[in-house]
């Protein structure tokens, strides 16, 4: 293998060795607690839009914790963080363009 690749791998592994294992257990605990809160909320008979907003907010926090700590993104260089995450959020946000059509269907009548 390319010597540069091996050196980069060793550098990445050295970063891993410096992470405290307890952090991973805290993240895991936080994810389980947030899941419990979500399930509790599901039975609160809330207005759907309000519940959706809270559930999606919690899901985004959970996703951010998984990406940052479990997937190691917090410790990557800024080019990697910004290029990957910004492009992902942009592409997913572009799909919102279809949503107004779903609302339009609701108000279609018989001609």
């Amino acid at each position, binding site marked *: 293998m390319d010597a*540069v690749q091996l050196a980069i791998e060793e550098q990445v592994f050295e970063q891993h060795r410096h992470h405290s294992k307890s952090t991973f257990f805290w993240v895991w605990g936080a994810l389980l607690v947030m899941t419990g809160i979500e399930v509790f909320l599901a039975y609160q008979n809330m207005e759907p839009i309000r519940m959706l907003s809270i*559930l999606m907010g919690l899901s985004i926090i959970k996703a951010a914790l998984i990406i940052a700590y479990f997937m190691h993104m917090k410790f*990557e260089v800024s*080019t*990697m963080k910004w290029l990957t995450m910004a492009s992902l959020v942009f592409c997913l946000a572009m799909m919102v363009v279809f949503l107004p059509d779903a609302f339009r269907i609701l108000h279609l009548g018989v001609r």
Partner: protein
Amino acid sequence: MADVAVPHAAAGASPYEPSLFGTYSKKIGMWLFLLSDSLTFGALLWAYTYGRVSTPNWPTPFHSESIRNATLMTAFLLTSSLTMVLAVRAAVDGRTKALRMWLLATMACGTAFIILHGREWSNLIAEGLTLPMFPTPPGHPSAEFADVAKSVPQFPATFFGLTGMHMLHVTIGVIYLGVVALRKKFIPILLGLWLVAWLATPAYSPFHYGAHFLLLAAIAISIILWLKPKVYDPSDVEVAGLYWHFVDLVWMFIFPLVYLMSTRIV
């Protein structure tokens, strides 16, 4: 660019510039795949949302038993992410025995997720919430679920499409980790699992035919390991871990959107 430079003498031995992303190529490749795959799931989740918004009488079929089952599945996936992180750490530290143990623990949690999900699907199908492409189960489906499948076909179509795609990813993840942990020794295990899954599921279950995916995977793995036999190093474990965490990440959106937003409150 200062933060991505590789500070060692070996860098001079290569004619190439250091990586723009400050990490090794395999990991960048996996990240690019995951970005493209997240668009696949993004499209499916938007399709589900579109169907839900445009359908006034969207069903809420998930009773407390289903929610309990899905919560347990979520706990298994979250725990598998923890064991996967510990596997990566063991690989980096060179603790081979611990690495294998954590990988097997991750696979066990993933397998538990698949089994619980399969049970959930089987219950729904038996109650009449099904797709035209699935074989008809014997017995009498409940009128409520059969009615949902007929009057709101968007629900079973998007539900089975989205959760089926995710279940396929979890299955591939378990197989991927099995190859990294056990290499050639995993092939007979996979063939055994195929036989068990095929023979233990009734002929009217979609999993009876779906089990053949394990046979195809065993053939594909045999060819790959025959063409390129290798001992997997810590970078391979880390890259496999990225895939596994992604599968967990996607479920963090499917669980609230599909299950919790369709909870039956009595």
